[in-house]
C-alpha cells in the first residue's frame, strides 16, 4: 500500500512536469487556435536565457523574472514577425513554420550556448518531507502549487476579463472578431507572449531536476501534448490534471505491468491519447468541438 501511494506521489511529481509545458500549449491553442510544435524549444531557449543571466552574475530571482519578461516579449515578436505573414493560410503551412522554428531554435540555442549538459539553479527548496514513510519532495510540492496558481489565473483571464474574451473570440473566428472591433493582431501577439512566458516558467521549474541541455524539452513535448489532449486542449486545469494522470499511469504501469518495461513507457501516453480520443475527443475538461457544416 505504501508503495502504491509512493508511486502515485512520484507519478504526480513527474506529471507536473508534463502539465507545466501543457499549460503553455493550451494557452496558445486557446488564444490562437494553433498548435505550436516549437513551444518546448521556446521554453528551452528561455531557460537558457535565465541560465545565462545567472552565469553573468544576476541573483536568481531577478534572472528568472527577467527571463520570463524577455520570453513574453520574444513570444510577441515571434507572432508578429514569423507567424503573422502566414496567419490566414492552411493550418499545415503554419505547422511547417512551427516545425522550422523548432529546428531553428534548437540549433540556435546550441550554437549560442553549446550542446553540453549543465545544471540549473533551484528556486525551490531541495529537501524532501517524509510523511508516514512516503517521500515527498518540496520541489514537487512547490511546482504543483505554482501550477495550480497559474491555472487559476488563466481561468480568471479567460473567463472574467475582457482581454480573455477577446482572445477567445479571436481564436474562434478572427473575421467576426474584427467585425466587432477586436484588434485581432494584438490579441494574437499577447496570446503568443503569454504562452512563451508560461513555457519559460515551465522550463525554469523543471530544469533543476531534468538538467539543462538543448534537448531537455524535446522528450517532454509529446507527454505534454498527451496531457493537453487528455485534459482538453482548451482547459488549463485539464492540462495539469491530464499531466498528473499520465505521470501516474506511466509510473504505475512501469511498476505493475511486467511486459511494458521501462523502455516502452512511451506507449502509455500513446494508449491514453488513443483511448481518450476514441471515447471522448474533447478530453476530460475540454468543451465539445462544434463543426459548422
Amino acid at each position: 500500500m505504501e508503495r502504491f501511494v509512493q508511486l502515485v506521489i512520484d507519478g504526480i511529481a513527474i506529471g507536473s512536469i508534463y502539465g507545466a509545458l501543457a499549460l503553455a500549449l493550451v494557452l496558445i491553442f486557446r488564444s490562437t487556435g494553433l498548435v505550436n510544435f516549437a513551444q518546448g524549444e521556446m521554453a528551452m531557449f528561455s531557460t537558457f536565457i535565465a541560465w545565462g543571466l545567472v552565469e553573468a552574475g544576476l541573483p536568481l530571482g531577478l534572472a528568472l523574472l527577467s527571463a520570463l519578461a524577455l520570453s513574453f516579449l520574444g513570444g510577441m515578436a515571434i507572432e508578429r514577425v514569423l507567424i503573422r505573414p502566414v496567419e490566414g493560410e492552411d493550418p499545415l503551412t503554419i505547422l511547417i513554420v512551427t516545425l522550422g522554428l523548432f529546428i531553428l531554435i534548437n540549433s540556435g540555442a546550441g550554437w549560442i550556448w553549446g550542446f553540453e549538459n549543465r545544471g540549473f539553479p533551484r528556486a525551490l527548496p531541495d529537501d524532501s518531507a517524509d510523511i508516514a514513510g512516503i517521500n515527498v519532495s518540496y520541489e514537487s510540492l512547490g511546482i504543483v502549487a505554482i501550477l495550480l496558481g497559474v491555472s487559476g489565473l488563466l481561468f480568471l483571464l479567460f473567463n472574467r476579463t475582457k482581454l480573455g474574451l477577446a482572445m477567445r473570440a479571436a481564436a474562434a473566428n478572427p473575421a467576426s472578431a474584427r467585425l466587432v472591433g477586436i484588434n485581432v493582431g494584438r490579441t494574437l501577439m499577447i496570446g503568443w507572449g503569454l504562452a512563451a512566458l508560461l513555457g519559460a516558467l515551465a522550463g525554469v521549474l523543471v530544469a533543476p531536476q531534468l538538467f539543462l541541455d538543448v534537448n531537455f524539452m524535446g522528450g517532454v513535448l509529446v507527454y505534454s501534448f498527451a496531457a493537453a489532449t487528455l485534459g482538453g486542449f482548451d482547459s488549463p486545469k485539464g492540462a495539469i490534471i491530464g499531466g498528473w494522470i499520465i505521470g501516474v499511469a506511466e509510473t504505475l504501469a512501469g511498476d505493475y505491468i511486467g511486459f511494458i518495461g521501462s523502455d516502452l513507457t512511451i506507449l502509455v501516453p500513446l494508449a491514453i491519447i488513443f483511448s481518450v480520443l476514441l471515447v471522448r475527443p474533447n478530453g476530460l475538461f475540454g468543451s465539445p468541438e462544434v463543426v459548422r457544416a
Partner: protein
Amino acid sequence: MSLISVERDSPQHRRLKAAGLALLVVVAMIVPFFFGPFRVSQFTLALIYAVAVLGLNLLVGYSGQISLGHGAFFALGAYTCAILLDRTGVPYLLTIPAAALVCFVAGLALGLPALRLHGLYLALVTLAIAIATPVLIRRFDSLTGGSQGLAVEQPTAPGALGLADDQFIYFLALAVAAPMFWLAAGMVRRDVGRALIAIRDNETAAKTMGVNLAAFKTRAFGLSAAYAGVAGALFVFANGFVAPESFTLVVSFSFLAAVVVGGLATVAGALFGALFIVFVPVWSSDVNDALSGVIYGAALIACMYVFRSGIMGLLRTAFARVVEVKGSTTGRIDDEVDEVAVADADHPAGAGAGGVRS
C-alpha cells in the same frame, strides 16, 4: 501575355503534354551518366523519398487527414524488406510488393480508428506513433536486429547491362517511382481524386452527394502507407542497412515538410519536396557547419512565405506566363477549382486541420 495558347484537352494540348513527359523521361534517364556516383546516390534518395512524400500527399493534401507519423510506415516497409532479405531467400524485387502489402494493411488498420479523429487529434496520435517507432523496433530485436540494425546485400547491376551499381540502383528506383507517380496522377484525375478533394473541403457536402466517406478515407490511409512501404524497400536497396536511429521523428517531419514545400495536393510537388529535404540540409551544412540547423529551419520557414502553394504553385504561375491553357475546370485538381467553383462564404480557409472550434 503568354506565348502559347492552347485549348485544354485539345490535340495540341495533348501533344504538348506528351512532349513534356518524353523530355522528362529522357532527362531522368541520362542523369546517372551525367553525374558521378555520389550525386547519383543523392538523386536516387530523392526519388525514393518522392514516392513516400507522394503517398503522404495523397493523405494530407487530397484527403485532408494529417499524419505526423508517416515515417512509421516507411520504417515498416524498410524492415519488411530487410527482414525478408536477411532471413529468407526472397528475391529482392519481390520485397517491394511485400512491403507495399504489409504497409497497406497497416495503413487500413490505422485508417479505421483515424476516422473518428481529425485535425489536431489525428496529428497527435500519429506523432506518438512516430515517436514509438524506434522504441518498438528495439523492443522486437529478435526480429529486427534491435540496436545493431540489419545489414543486407544491396542489389548489384547484372553484368550484361554494363552499369555501375549506383547507376543500377538509380534506375531501379526510377523504374519503381515512375509508375507510382503515373498511378497517383491517374487516381487524382479521376473520381477518386475528386471525391477525396470534396471530402477534404467539405465533408458534409460530400456525404450528401453520395461519397462513401469511411471507405475513401480509410483507403487513402492504406494507399499512402503502401507508398511509404515501397519507398522503405527502395531505401534498403540504396543503403544496405537499417537501424532504429534511421527512423526517428525527423523522418516523419521531413516528409511532411516535403509535402508542403513541394505543394499540397499536387503530384509533381512530391519530387520537389523530396529534392528539398535531400539537398537543403547538405547545402546548409556547407554554408556553416555549426549553424546548419538554423539555416535549414530558416529555409523551411522562408519557403512557407515565398511559396504559398509550394514550389508547384510557384512553377505553375510562372509557367502560365508561357503557356496558357484555356478551358473548363473539369478534371483540374488544384486550388483554382476553389476559385472557379462555387465560392462558399462559409468555406474554411484551408481545411487541413479539420474543424476545431468551440
